[in-house]
Every structure is written in C-alpha cells, then in structure tokens.
C-alpha cells in the first residue's frame, strides 16, 4: 500500500548522504530549529527597527536637532570589514566540506579576526561620538535610544558570534566534527551570515539614509 512518509532523510540536504539515519534526522531537526531561532531573532531586530522608524517619523527630522550626521566613510569601511568576514566564513565552511583542514583553519581565523576588527571599529565610533559630540545612550534622546540600542544589540550579537566561532574552532581542532557530521559548523556559519545581513540593513538605515 502507498504510505506517505512524513520525514524522508533524502529529501533534506545533500550532505545527509553517507551518514546514519539517526544523525541525518537529528541534523534536520537542529538546523530547522536553528533557522527558526534566527527568525525570532530577526523579529527582535525588526521590532527595534520598527521603533526606530516610528520615532524617526514622529520626530523632528533625522538626525534630530543637535545631533551630528553620522560618519558614512568610517561606517562603510567598517561594514566592508564585517562583510569580508562573511565571505571568509563561507570559504571556511566550503573547505571543511572538502576536507581541507588547513585552509579551513586559515579562513576561520580570518573570520574571527575580521569580526573582532569590526567590533573594535564600532567601539572606536562610539568613542568618537561620545568624546566629540557627547552623544551617549541615554543622553541623546531618541537618537541614542534607536542608534545605540540597535547597533549595540548588533555589536552584542557580533561578540556572541566571535565567542561561538571560537568555540567551534576549538571543537574542530579537538575533532568533534567530521567531514560528514558538522551540523554545528553549519549553524555557526548561518549565525555569522545572519549577523552580517542584519548589518546590511542597519548600515543602510542609519548611515546611508540621513
């Protein structure tokens, strides 16, 4: 008799072949769960972005009176650093899939370094805003509320991402993942791309549109 099978391992990703069925099914669950986690994180960012747009629209123009325009030059430079880390992360995962451990390690370390570079760039920008324009989180009205909250939240995500990638790197060195079983690494890559993509939106909404 014909029976529809609810979960068929071969319908999932191509990498599931060559591993046992339990792993393949568990991997599907974890990747799906992680994607849903990213969706809800996206909603968190979207809510704050909504708040920013709402405050911006009901306020006195943007940037609000008394606040300097943000420095697009430095932000674009810093964005490219972060976007670059997205590309290196992609290479890291590709090399892992093909079993080139050394190349993987190089790209992974590059990702972590670029991520840290972006974070220091953001710190530098905050410091400039604070020392030159006395713009602080609570002291700059709705600008502080939207700009510092959103970029700070993103910065926190980058920081968590750096920790996450570092742990993943140590795990790969320690032999936790194999050429066939690397769901954790896939999730790390997804997360890191997610953080990059959020920045595309923040960059365009805060720096390019003012």
């Amino acid at each position, binding site marked *: 008799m014909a029976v529809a099978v609810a979960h068929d391992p071969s319908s*999932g*990703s*191509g*990498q599931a072949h060559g591993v046992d069925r339990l792993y393949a099914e568990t991997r599907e669950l974890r*990747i*799906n769960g992680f*994607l849903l986690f*990213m969706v809800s994180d996206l909603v968190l960012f979207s809510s704050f972005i909504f708040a920013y747009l709402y405050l911006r629209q009901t306020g006195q123009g943007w940037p609000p009176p008394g606040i300097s*325009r943000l*420095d*697009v*030059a*430095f*932000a*674009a*430079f810093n*964005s*490219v*650093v972060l*976007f*670059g880390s*997205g*590309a290196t992360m*992609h*290479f890291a995962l*590709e090399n892992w899939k093909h079993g080139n451990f050394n190349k993987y390690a190089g790209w992974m370390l590059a990702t972590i370094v670029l991520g840290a570079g972006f974070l220091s760039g953001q710190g530098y920008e905050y410091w*400039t805003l604070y020392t*030159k324009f006395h713009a602080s989180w609570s002291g700059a009205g709705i600008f502080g509320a939207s700009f510092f909250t959103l970029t700070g939240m993103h910065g926190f995500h980058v920081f968590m991402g750096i920790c996450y990638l570092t742990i993943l790197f140590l795990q790969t060195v320690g032999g936790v993942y194999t050429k066939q079983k690397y769901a954790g690494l*896939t999730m790390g*890559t*997804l997360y890191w*791309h*997610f953080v*990059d*993509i959020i*920045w*595309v939106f923040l*960059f*365009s909404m805060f*720096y*390019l*549109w*003012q």
Partner: protein
Amino acid sequence: MNQLQFEHIITIIGAIVVFLAASVALKNDWKTPGLENQVFKLMLFLLAVGSVLAFLAAMGVIGSWKGSA
C-alpha cells in the same frame, strides 16, 4: 595618506572583493538542495547587496561621504 583616504581605498577594494566572492559562491551553490542552503543563498545575495551599498557609498553615489569632522 590620511585616515580618510585609507578608509576610502580599503572600502572600495574590499567591497569589490566581497561582491566577487559572494557572487562566485552564490553561483557555485546555486543548485544545492535543502532548506539551510536556500537560506545560505539568500544571505550570500544580501551580502553582495551590502557590498554594493558600501561601494556606492564610497564612490559618493549614496549617503554623504565625509569624515567625522
């Protein structure tokens, strides 16, 4: 070379490199199946968009390119 020029050059070169890398990766991955690979492709696409935005900003086409004077 002052800081602004340095930022300018790095941004333009970096944006081009990232755009090419993302495009090539997108092309290579185009036919991969599975949910997470669709998400990867979307993200690579947006990454390419982001680098285009940074490039345009550096060329002075969008945003207003100036130092933090």
